[in-house]
């Protein structure tokens, strides 16, 4: 298998430079580099959605306004869940460095649970807003809000699937130089999702309530 050959070539240099486990193989390093490319692109995507929301946020037509809808308590819980899950994903990467299969899987599991809590709470939130009369087409504010925050929620859902798949692989095969880049990159994605949320809760929720 091609990656095994690269495993041999990459290992010595990686060892010498004391790189992290995910960077020991050429394949791993390539994957990490490619993923940073991807994150740059994702930043631009979310920037467009943010720009759209910023422009349209006052056009509430005859529908509900942010003041009538947003609850700070719920948004704070969402924020807390996501930031904490970012921290636990770091613990998972640490465990991976120590090739501790159980701890890696355990911390990934905690991360997934916290993320799931976020997702379920967000779904409840959207259902509540819809019940209050904020449909997708109710107003320009509604459309841009649901698109931006919904897109983020979709990223959370996708990230959860990804983390789950990686966790299963770690449980089955242990921590290897093949698994390590996967764990590292999946948690990198998760941190990015958290970064986007930091902007969302500031710009969308907090600033709309001023």
């Amino acid at each position, binding site marked *: 298998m091609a990656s095994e050959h690269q495993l041999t070539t*990459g290992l010595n*240099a*990686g060892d010498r*430079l004391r*790189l*992290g*486990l*995910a*960077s020991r193989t050429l394949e*791993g*390093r*390539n994957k*990490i*580099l490619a993923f*940073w*490319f991807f*994150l*740059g*692109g*994702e*930043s*631009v995507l*979310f*920037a*467009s959605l*943010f*720009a*759209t929301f*910023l*422009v349209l946020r006052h056009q509430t037509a005859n529908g509900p306004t942010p003041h009538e809808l947003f609850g*700070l308590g719920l*948004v*704070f819980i969402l*924020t*807390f869940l996501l*930031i*904490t899950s*970012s*921290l636990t994903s*770091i613990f998972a*990467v*640490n465990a991976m*460095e*120590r090739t501790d299969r159980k701890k890696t899987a355990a911390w990934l599991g905690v991360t997934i649970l916290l993320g799931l809590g976020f997702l379920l709470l967000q779904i409840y939130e959207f259902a509540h807003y819809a019940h209050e009369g904020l449909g997708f087409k109710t107003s320009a504010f509604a459309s841009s809000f649901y698109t931006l925050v919904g897109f983020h929620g979709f990223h959370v859902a996708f990230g959860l699937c990804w983390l789950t798949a990686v966790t299963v692989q770690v449980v089955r095969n242990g921590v290897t130089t093949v698994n*390590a*880049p996967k764990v590292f990159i999946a948690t*990198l994605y998760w*941190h*990015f999702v*958290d*970064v986007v949320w*930091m*902007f969302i*809760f*500031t*710009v969308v929720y*907090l*600033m709309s*309530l*001023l």
Partner: protein
Amino acid sequence: METKVGHGSVQPEAEGHRSMRKHIISYVIMMVISIAAFLMVGTNMLSPGAMIVTLLIMAAVLVFLQLADFMHLDQKGHLYPIIFIANGIFWGIIFIVVIFIWP
């Protein structure tokens, strides 16, 4: 010298306890700033204008901490990631400002 290895796309050195403490400190700071932001808005502490500026600064700090600490951008060998993210932020700011002031 091995020049092909590890430049710009590596996961950093295996972490020790010192680094772990840094992560926890960052986390605590992030939670404190988040709580402060929510409290400020909830209690209407500042005027809207001042509030927007403060909130944006807080968000920038949060994002910076997340990028620098959690994503290891403060460690060596991360020139490429920094370039890519900076590029994303650059275009992001341009998009937002232009669409905002478009007549």
